[in-house]
């Protein structure tokens, strides 16, 4: 049987990761599901595991000089229940939509990111928060913007010796965020499409706006043209702005949940709903 490591310090964890390339395990909500899916068709999978659950200082949310540091192992429930400014309203809304309560109690924000599913509910929110991912290895620590960390469908820039240790969210005083998720049932549902947005007003006009759509491309995407079109507007004007051309960065596919054409239509509606929420 492959080894199972459960180190008690980050240094040990990084040393094991460097030496063995063992698969980092945190909340396990994806890894166990993958194991089951493979075993179901006679493909037993028991990789060497690097269990990060005993490593201190990997969870919790702390305010820093530049903004906030969210520990990699911070669960959705912690995010949903932490006192955070309106900048995090969208991420907190997503935290209540990931799986059921059981998954929210175990699933972690870094796990959602590293799995790099097109339908990961955290990812569009991290994109609009301008989050950076903190990657530690035995020799160094580096940071990458989310959009550079996610390199494609279920693939990331995580190097063999690296572990995600935190996410950094820059301060954006006065900003607030929202999240819209669409699924075919109320709970426990993989998103058909989703939209996330951060907005900061100066006076009664939009000074900063960041918009992203998920589940409509291999990696959730920001929509720069839409962001440009929204900048400077009065909030009441926002819902009327999104147009099909703004969705150019998206490449939706058809699957068991929805057709590609529907995803485009729905993304537009979700964007309008998202922006209407800012107008209220």
């Amino acid at each position, binding site marked *: 049987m492959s080894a199972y490591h459960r180190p008690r310090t980050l240094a040990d964890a990084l040393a094991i990761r460097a030496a063995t390339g063992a698969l980092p395990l945190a909340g396990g909500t994806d890894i166990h599901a993958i194991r089951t899916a493979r075993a179901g068709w006679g493909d037993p999978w028991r990789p060497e595991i690097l269990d990060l659950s005993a490593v201190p200082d990997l969870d919790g949310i702390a305010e820093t000089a530049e903004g906030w540091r969210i520990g990699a192992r911070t669960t959705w429930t912690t995010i949903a229940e932490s006192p955070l400014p309106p900048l995090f309203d969208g991420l907190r809304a997503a935290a209540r939509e990931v799986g059921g309560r059981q998954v929210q*109690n175990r699933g972690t924000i870094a796990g959602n990111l590293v799995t790099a599913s097109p339908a990961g509910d955290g990812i569009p929110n991290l994109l609009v928060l301008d989050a950076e991912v903190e990657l530690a290895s035995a020799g160094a620590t580096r940071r990458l913007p989310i959009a550079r960390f996610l390199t494609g469908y279920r693939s990331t820039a995580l190097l063999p010796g690296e572990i995600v240790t935190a996410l950094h969210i820059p301060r954006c005083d006065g900003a607030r965020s929202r999240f819209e998720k669409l699924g075919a049932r*109320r709970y426990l549902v993989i998103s058909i499409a989703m939209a996330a947005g951060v907005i900061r007003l100066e006076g009664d006009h939009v000074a900063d706006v960041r918009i992203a759509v998920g589940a409509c491309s291999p990696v959730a995407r920001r929509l720069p043209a839409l962001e440009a079109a929204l900048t400077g507007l009065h909030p009441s004007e926002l819902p009327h702005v999104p147009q099909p051309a703004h969705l150019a960065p998206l490449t939706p596919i058809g699957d068991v949940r929805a057709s590609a054409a529907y995803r485009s239509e729905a993304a537009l509606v979700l964007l309008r709903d998202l922006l209407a929420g800012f107008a209220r």
Partner: protein
Amino acid sequence: MTALTVNGTRHEVDADPFAPLSDTLRVGLGLTGTKEGCNAGDCGACTVLLEGAQVCACLVATAQAEGAEITTVEADDPLLDTLRAAFLARGAAQCGICTPGMLMAALDLLRRNATPDRRAVEDTLGGVLCRCTGYLQIIDAVLDVARGNVAPAATDGRVGASFPRVDGAPKVAGTERYGADAAPDDALWLRAVRSPHAHARFTLGDLDAARDQLGLVAILSARDVPGRNAFGIMPDIKDQPVFAEGYVRYRGEAVLGLLGTREAVAAVRDADLPIAWEVLPALSGVAAALAPDAAQLHAHAPGNILVRGHLRRGDAEATLAAAPVRADGTFRTSFVEHAYIEPEAGYAQPGEDGAMIITACTQAPVMDREETARVLGVPDESVRIIPTACGGGFGGKLDVSVQPLLAVAARVTNQPVRMVYSRAESMASSTKRHPAILHARMAADAEGRFTAYALEGDFNTGAYASWGPTVANRVPVHASGPYRVPNVLNRTRAVYTNDTPAGAFRGFGVPQAAIATEALVDDLALALGMDRWEIRRRNAIGKGDTTPSGQVLHASAGLPDCLDALKADWDAMLARVAAHNATHRRLRLGAGIACMWYGCGNTALSNPSTMRITLARDGTLTLFNGAVDIGQGSTTVIGQIAADALGLPIAALRQVVGDTALTPDAGKTSASRQTFVSGRAAQDAAKALRARILALANAGDGARLSLDGTRLTVADAHTTRILDLVALDADLTAEARYDPPTVTLDADGQGVPYATYGFAAQVALVRVDTALGTVKVEEIVVAQDVGRAVNPLLVAGQIHGGVAQGLGLVLMEEFIPGRTENLHDYLIPTAGDMPRIRIHLVEDPEPEGPLGAKGVGEPALVPTAPAILSAIRHATGVRMTEVPVLPHRLMERLGGGEPPPIPLPSLAFGV
């Protein structure tokens, strides 16, 4: 070793640190109260508390639970006890397989928040799937606890009383034993290797060498089947092999059986086994299978047509041609997965001289015995089937699954063998609801009286026959709906394909047909400018009317009463819709209505039940009840009927259920027959026992019985006698058999297919987001003629559960072989998807039934889907002809992102 603290007790357990905590609790510590439904975090059955917070134990590596406080359903906890009592009082546990998870989720909530509102309860239960209850009784049970409002345990178990299920206590304690929960310690583990291809030939290499190399006890294949390598529901169509013989007809077909330790069989990589595949083009869907050049999948089925169904009465074609008002349409439905939360599981124990005992979850022990005996090549009597608790069935556990595989393995090794299907295996290999393509036509006269109906229906029966003939024969009888229609021509086919076998699923094709027919009824109402309730009321079949089979309904035909009971709800719904839609463009309300009828029992075939009741000399009163309770509550209902007929309280009655060695044959738990058929047999048996007792005591008919130990007191108006049971020469036993009277159908489907029918109507209120195509069902009001509600609490549970499955069928459920073989791609309703449900019970007594009762379970499902479709149409003007109505399908029909105009064309009708 890992140290785990479970329910306050510290345990040392030897487990792979990566092993899911659910496995370690169940296998390592024997705490089987925690259930495994999917092992992927999709169903929540394994929910436990970890440091007080609910988690899926299947997603927690054992090492991660070290040092943490783990709470399981077995915990001794006062708040948990209150929840248990509330669950029982509310009927919140049906099959009980989700109950431990539900209890743990609720405990998590109530410890955090002692006064949650309904939304908070839904949020906390949203991660646990239930397939039986429709969630409402569970939510109410949790709210009862939050409000300090738990009903005291009921004591009145007489017929008509809402008595908590008699088998409920172990379900809420976590001590109920399902198929995967127990097996002999020395049992080998069996894992089936299944075809990943829908259509292929294969050759096997050296299995003995592979066995030795992989450290297995045996690798089983077709060569190891001692009897006939064939099974199937129909007596004359045993078309499915236990192990495929060089040729597979669907993805999921068993090819090999791996026998060994649990670890050894799990460690085998299927790709490493000596199977050489030659993949063939697969016939997916009936169009492919009916193509002129299609491969013939079975020698006995030219053109891949398994069977045709037919019913003709009057002249439908001529009437349709001449009718002033006509409607027609082509409708498509999908494969629907039963999604019972308990995957198939059980174990086999070999005995001397060919004997075999199979202990497994099932709906049909006597049929399992026949199938297993044939496969073993032994007489039926050599096989004993002992049903475990059944964690949901809905028709999917009528066919054998693990039974023949286990039997072959136990025979070959002469050792006990156990097997637990994975979720993927269960979904890929087990039967489904038949996808249907239905072309229906219907006509009415100028006054809105139906004059003709015609149906051509093709049902995709998949790779093997299973219950395909039953569907093909039941649909023609029911297709025109519960209406007076003098001219009917119905033709159906069950077609073999390379898809997953379709079999029995709550309603046997009638839910599919109702989708088509009820849409046409709405069409006719629209064409005539009639209200949709009005046209149904005008045509509702009732007492004295003749069915398309030529059967005159002499009694218990309460559809007119059902519709009358709904009239006020219907009018109120229409008013609400009109008021709302006058001012809302995007979120549109819609009201819908549908009716149904459903014959209880087999279609024009004998389907007897025999029941035995014994009052022993030691004072024990036992009902030997062969009717398996799959969660719907037959043990309780049949017990109530028997106790009432005997004249003793149900608390005095012990039951032995479903064991083929101990109980007479009560048939299968299907076709809504157990309350009606087995209940009647139990009533007759109990009456016969009562007659013997009264004769012994020389007492009159009205005598009151009471039992105290071995003293049976018989008191009538004149005298009181005490019988000392110990002094009797023998135990007092009575047995009765009941077979509902039917008459074989002739070539035109004329006869008496069923002794009685259930009737129901439902109205639905939906909210459609016309910009996204999403549908939320807000309310369903049900009126159902149940003959007599033996136990209104359990009847309500059946109706809620039927509505939930109907809602899933119409809005989200679509099994696609190879694509949706898990519970996150295949969606069933969650606690947040249910509408409010109100119920009007109509009790038009069935003279054949016990105290007037008839079947309840399937009728509850049938009208829901068409009522919701009718409501979607009312909201949007779109007649959907394909289910499930996924958001993208509705949007395609709505024609883009712009909201529909006001007023909608649909508002012209029904308002």
